[in-house]
Every structure is written in C-alpha cells, then in structure tokens.
C-alpha cells in the first residue's frame, strides 16, 4: 500500500469577506435577522391595531353560539350550534362537493383524454374543441354562468322540469328521491359486503391458477358459463321486453320476450355465441338510438328515425359480431359474468328472501314547495357541475400526456407479440401511462378541492364561505379564522403529497 499524494496544495487563503463559507453565514444571518425584525414589526402593528379596535384574540370563540343559518349541511345544524360545529360543517361541505366533483371529473376527463387521441377525426376534434374552450375560461365565470344564467333561469317551483325517476329541476335546485332503507335492509348490505369479498377471493384464486397452469379452474369455467347464459338471458329479456312493450307494442310481450331470451341464452353457450352478442347489441343499440334520436330531433318523422336507428344499430351489431368472432373461447376469459352474478345476485336474493324493503321517498310538489326527497340546492348543483366540467378538461390533458409519454416502441413490441388492441392497452400501455398520469392527476384533485372554495362566490356554504366569511364577519377574529381555514387546506395538501411520495417510490422505475 502506498499513500496517495495528490500533489494538491492546501486551498489558498482568501480574505475573510471573500470566503464563500463565511459569506454564506453572513447572508443567512442577515436574512434571518430581517425576517425576525419584519415579523416582530407585523406582530407589534397587529397588536396595536387590535388594541385600538378593542378586539380580543384567541380561539375561545369556537365554543360560543354561532347564531347564523347554514343553508345546506350534512351534519345537524341549528342557530344554537357552536362555531366549531360551523367549522366542521364547512369542512364536510367542501369534502362532499370535492368528492362528487372528483368522481365525475375523472370519468369525463379520461373519456375526453382518450377521445382526443382517437384516430377518428370527428371524435378527436370534438374533444379538442371542448378542452380548448373550457380550460381557457375562468372557473368563477363558468360557475356564474351555471348558477346565474342557467340554474336561476330554470322554471319556478310550480313549473318544475320533471325528469325520469322522479327527479325535478327548478329554481330551488335539484330534487331527487331519497332512499329510505328499513331494518332488514342492513342484511342486504352485509350480504353485499360478503359477496364482494367472496368474488375478490375467487377471482384472485382463478387468476393465480391460470398463471400457474395456463387454465382457469374447471369449476370456475363451468360456473362462468352458467353465469354467462343467465346474464345473457336477463339482458335479452329486459331489452326485448322494452322493444315489444314500448317501441312495437304487441300483446303477450313478456311471454314472447322470455321465449326469445331463453333461445338467445341457449345460443350463447354454443359455438354461435357471437351471434347472440350481435343480435343483443342490435336490439340495445336500436332501443338507445331510437329513443335518443327521437328526442334530439323531434321534428323528424318517427318512421325516418326508426329506419335510421335500425341502420346504425345494424352497423354496430356487425362491429360487435366481428369482435365477438375474434373473442377467445370462454375457457380463456376472465369469468366476469360470474363475479357480477355473485356481487349483485347474492344481495338481490337476500333482499327478496328477507322481505326487506328499500322505499324511495319521492319529492312531491305541495302548495309552495317540494316536500320530501333529497333536495340539492342550486349552489351545490352549480358548483359540482362547474368543477366537473372545468377540471375534466385538465384531467383530459393529463391523460393525453400520460398516454403519449409511453414510448411508441412499447406499442410496436406489443403488436409484434400479437396482442390485440384491448390487451395491448390493458397490459402494456395503461400500466406505464398510469405511472405518468397519477402524480399530475392527484394535483388536479387537489386543485379541484381548492377550487371548491369558489363556491363562496355563489353562496355554497363550504369552508371559506362559512368560516373565513360568515364566522369571521360575526366574531371579527380575522387572524384565527383565516389561519384555521388555511390550516385545513394545508393538511389536505400535505396528506396528498405524502400519499404521492409513497406512490412514486412504489412505482418508480428500478434502474441500475
């Protein structure tokens, strides 16, 4: 062993003020000193100002009676409630609208993001126009539009717009039926929980077996076939019943529908399963198109609509039929129908056997207003709607960027392995795209939550409105109220970044 002689002389002496280390310390001391001085100045000023205005400070006001009304609350609220309860009401209202907004915006945003990448010219252009229009207009303006120009222009209570399923829209908001489950209904919910667990365990076992042996377990395949036929029967029966009872009214519609449905279900277990799918998709597409076109273009003659609907439905059916011909045999497919039968069928069976009832309290128009049901105020509807529409355009861009970030070579490699479009997306593209999509997606969720504070401008009682607005004005405790409000958002944000850091560490590429 030899000692290394780098031949390097000691660093040359520099003058005291040119030494970067000492300079750094001086800078920091100066900055810290300035900051401390600034804060002391602010605190002094604030104390003097508060003393001059005869205001007290402290959080004791939280335990005083609030004495104001909150128009919409999930928690029990009365004028006699305390300020800390108002704080909680604000938080729950913020979380409620954020939760609903996030779910809807995710669905709309993913659809739009994928649509914008579609090779279909019209679809991608439609998505582009939506995204470029919506994201260049301020959210507050959109909220005003929905609230003041659309919802406030809805008909008065007596002329409410009636939608299907006993839903009504009027100036005072959206009235929807409220589910009122009875005691026995708890059993249905418990069964549902058990069924979800059973189905999950079953599918994990089936997948694992297939990974090991190349085949799904024989019992699962058999049960899956039966479930397939059963689900086919149910769907066919429902679709045909509507067709024969509503569109082409004939006598004995249920009987005919049942016979045809049984035939289709029987056909679906033979090698002509593709035919079943083709016929079913024709019927369903025709039903949807006939209804939708009929109501969209009410000025067209109904015969024309029917013929047009049938023609388009025929094309759709052909697409489904060719697709179905290419489907792998049922032995090689994941038994989705079986899982559906377990998850939905078991609770339905318990519901029927136990005699539980799930009544819906329908909103009814009384003399001056609707009574009963769940009444969503227009502020809530406008805010949730506006947040969804606005955030969806940003989520769409996130999704598009994520999908485009996946190297084209991945698509080509998957194609050369012979994977089909769906498998290629599901197994190769989406898992890699998700790694890029999820972090910005989370920050969009956070943005949506923060943007829900704009509800204050249209009178939705969320946190900023209730606490940094009404409570602040009534108590005059500006510092406390704003600090608490900001603290809540800070906690949301910190929680999100914690989760994000954990996720990023989990999914990040393991490199050399």
């Amino acid at each position, binding site marked *: 062993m030899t000692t290394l002689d780098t031949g390097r002389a000691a660093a040359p002496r520099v003058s005291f003020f040119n030494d970067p280390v000492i300079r*750094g310390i001086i800078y920091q001391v100066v900055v810290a000193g300035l900051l401390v001085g600034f804060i002391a100045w602010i605190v002094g000023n604030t104390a003097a*100002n508060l003393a001059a205005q005869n205001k007290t400070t402290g959080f004791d006001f939280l335990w005083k009676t609030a004495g104001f009304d909150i128009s919409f609350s999930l928690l029990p609220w009365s004028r006699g409630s305390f300020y800390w309860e108002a704080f909680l009401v604000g938080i729950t209202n913020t979380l409620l609208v954020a939760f609903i907004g996030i779910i809807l915006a995710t669905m709309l945003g993913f659809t739009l993001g994928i649509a914008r990448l579609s*090779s279909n010219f*019209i679809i991608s252009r439609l998505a582009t126009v939506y995204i470029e229009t919506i994201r*260049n*207009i301020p959210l507050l303006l959109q909220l005003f539009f929905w609230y003041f120009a659309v919802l406030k222009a809805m008909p008065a209570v007596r002329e409410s717009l009636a939608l299907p399923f006993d839903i009504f829209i009027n100036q005072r908001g959206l009235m929807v039926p409220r589910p009122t489950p009875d005691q026995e209904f708890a059993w249905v919910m418990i069964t549902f929980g058990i069924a979800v667990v059973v189905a999950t365990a079953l599918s994990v076992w089936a997948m694992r077996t297939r990974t090991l042996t190349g085949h799904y377990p024989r019992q699962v395949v058999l049960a899956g076939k039966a479930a397939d036929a059963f689900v086919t029967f149910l769907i066919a029966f429902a679709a045909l019943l509507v067709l024969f009872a509503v569109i082409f009214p004939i006598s004995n519609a249920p009987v005919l529908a049942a016979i045809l449905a049984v035939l289709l279900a029987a056909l679906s277990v033979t090698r002509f399963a593709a035919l079943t799918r083709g016929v079913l998709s024709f019927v369903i597409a025709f039903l949807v198109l006939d209804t939708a076109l009929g109501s969209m273009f009410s000025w067209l003659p109904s015969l024309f609509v029917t013929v047009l609907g049938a023609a388009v439905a025929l094309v759709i059916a052909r697409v489904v039929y060719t697709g179905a011909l290419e489907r792998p045999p049922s032995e090689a497919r994941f038994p989705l129908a079986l899982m559906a039968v377990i998850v939905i069928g078991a609770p339905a069976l318990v519901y029927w056997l136990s005699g539980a009832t799930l009544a819906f309290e329908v909103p009814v128009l009384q003399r001056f207003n609707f009574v009963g049901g769940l009444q969503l105020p227009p502020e809530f509807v406008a805010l949730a709607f506006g947040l969804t529409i606005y955030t969806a355009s940003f989520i769409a861009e996130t999704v598009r960027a994520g999908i485009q970030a996946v190297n084209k070579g991945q698509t080509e490699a998957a194609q050369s392995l*012979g994977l089909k479009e769906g498998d290629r997306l599901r197994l190769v593209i989406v898992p890699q795209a998700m790694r890029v999509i999820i972090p910005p997606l989370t920050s969009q969720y956070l943005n949506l939550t923060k943007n829900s504070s704009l509800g204050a401008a249209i009178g939705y009682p969320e946190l900023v409105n209730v606490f940094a607005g009404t409570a602040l004005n009534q108590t005059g405790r*500006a510092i406390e109220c704003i600090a608490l409000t900001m603290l809540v958002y800070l906690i*949301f944000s910190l929680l999100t970044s914690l989760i994000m850091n954990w996720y990023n560490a989990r999914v990040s590429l393991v490199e050399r």
Partner: protein
Amino acid sequence: MTDIGFVRADMVDAKPAPNRTSGAIAWAQKNLFATPLDGVLTVLGVVFLLWIVPPLYNFFIGHAVGPSGTVEECRMENAGACWAYISSEMEFFIYGFYDIPQQWRPNIVFALGAALLIPLLIPKVPFKRTNAVLFLFAYPVVSYFLLAGGVFGLMPIPTEKWGGLLVTLIISVVGITLSFPLGIILALGRQSKMPVIKTLCIGFIELVRAVPLISVLFMASIMLPLFMPQGMTIDKFLRALVGVTLFTSAYMAEVVRGGLQAIPRGQYEAGASLGLSYWQRMYFIILPQALKHVIPGIVNSFIALFKDTSLVYIVGMKDLLEAVKTKNDTALEWQSANTATTGYLFAAMVFWVFCFSMSRYSIFMERRLNTGYKR
C-alpha cells in the same frame, strides 16, 4: 404446440394492400371509417353535431339581436343572444366607473401597452433591450400617473372608480411582470445550499401552493391592513395585487425549479471553472437554458393568473367579471331572458381570446427556441 388458451396458435392472415393512399376518399377511410367501430363513432359524432350546431348557430347568430338592435327585439319569443346589450354597455365593461370625459387616458395606456408589447413579442423586431426596459420600467410609471392622475393638471381618479377590462388587464400585467422575477428568486433560493434561505423559500412556496387563492386574497384584504402601522392604509387595489403576485410567484417558482433541475451539473461547474460569480453564472448560463425548457409551464402560469384575476371579484374589486355581473343584475332596462347569458358569454369570449392567444404564442416560442434538440 402450446395448449395455453390465451396464446394465439396460428398466424393471422395478411391484410390486402390498400387501394388508395391519398385523396379525400382515402383520407375518409383512414380518419373516419378505418374500422367499423370508427364508422359508428363517426356517425354518432355527426349526429351529435347535427343536434348541437343548429341551436347554437341560432342562438349566437341566426336569431340573435345584433349590436344595433333594441331591447324589445331581445325580449321577443325565440330571440337568441342579445348583442345589443353588450354594445350599449361596452364602455362600462371596459372602463367601469372611470369618468367618461377622461376615458382617453386608459385608451392611451392601452395603446402604449400594445405599442410596446407587440414589438417585444415579435422575435425579428430589433431593440429588444430598450423595448423591454421601456415596457417593464417606464410604462408602469407612466400608466400609473396617467390613470390615477393628480399630476400635470390631470384630474385625480381614485382606484375605486377603475373597473372592467381595465382592472383585469392591470392586475394581470402587473402580476405577470412581478411574479416572474419573484418566482425565479424563490426557485434559486430553493436550490440554494444555505439552509436558512432554502427553508424559508420551501416554506413560502409550499404554504402558498397548499391554500386556495381565495384565502390568500381574503388574507391580503383583511389582514394586510392589520399588519401595517396605525393610520397607514393600503389601497384595496394594491392589496389584491399583492395577493395575486405572491400566489403566482409560488407557482412560478416551482415551474422554474423544474427547468433548473433539468440543467446538467456540468453546466454549473463549467460556469464556476470560468471564474464567473454566482449571479453571472445564473444570468449567462443557467437561467437562459432553464427558462427555455419550461416556457410552456411559465405561460401556463400566466394563463392561470389571467383567469384567476377574476377572483378579485370576491374581495370586492371591480374587474371585467364584476362589471358584467353588476350590469346583468342591475341593468333593468335590458332585462330579458337571455341578457345574463349573453353577458357571461361575452366575458367568457374576452377571457378566452386572451388565454388562447397566450397558449398559441407559447407553442410558437417553444418551436422557435427548440434549438439543439431538433432531429
């Protein structure tokens, strides 16, 4: 031979060669009817367009009441947008309560701004440095004295009277020009090796980014007066400006940090080995490269700021949105079924034009500056 069910055992037949590869029919085949599913989507898309376009056309143009129309026409059954309302209230939407005989002053400010900004944005025009100095330093001073008055015999006009598009543009221009350098300083501070400065910058950036702008504005408008010495009042306009600027600078800092992190270490070291000081290194070597990387992010922050100026409405400022809303609610002589809708659509169009042109400009600049990465 494998017996695994989900693996294809036989080859797929080769597809026949396409008949045409160019022309309208080939284009339609490729972009509209590539697969039967595509065909269905095309048909559904066309149906959707047929459903949505005629009513929109009728509302905006077909049945709309033109700028010279009357309120009676707007109140008629089936009338579309009431553009007459917009044209008659246009002055209010642009200037707010600014005294009408004095409106030449904001006009000069607008014209000066355009005259200085447009050459700044066109890459080929010379004298960029002079132009930038004039726009960033001389123009704000001139504009302030022109708008506020009180000197050279100009009638003083308090900021409470300013309103409409004027206020929206002032807040966004000031916010953009102030938040950009502030954001750069914060980003550099966050990269700094000095723990005190680094902690301060991280704390500020993360705190501001965690809370909604509305609460920052509330804080600026309610708490700023409390923080000042007794007897000293801060103009409401200034409070909103402070709030918007601080808020945007935190976002800007994160964007700039992204650019800084994309610069390889070697660039810093090369600068240091040339004997450049920290600020010289940043100004000549690091920032020009870093900022070029993040132009889309910077412009996105500008667009976000421009849209966010509408939030000052909540703390009682009179921007374009406030002007439109006030007129919608109070202009009884223009009351009709579509007045409010028309007003908001007009405001939306104004905001859209500004934001969309900003985003197009950023794409243009991105392409222009994309040197060295071209293949």
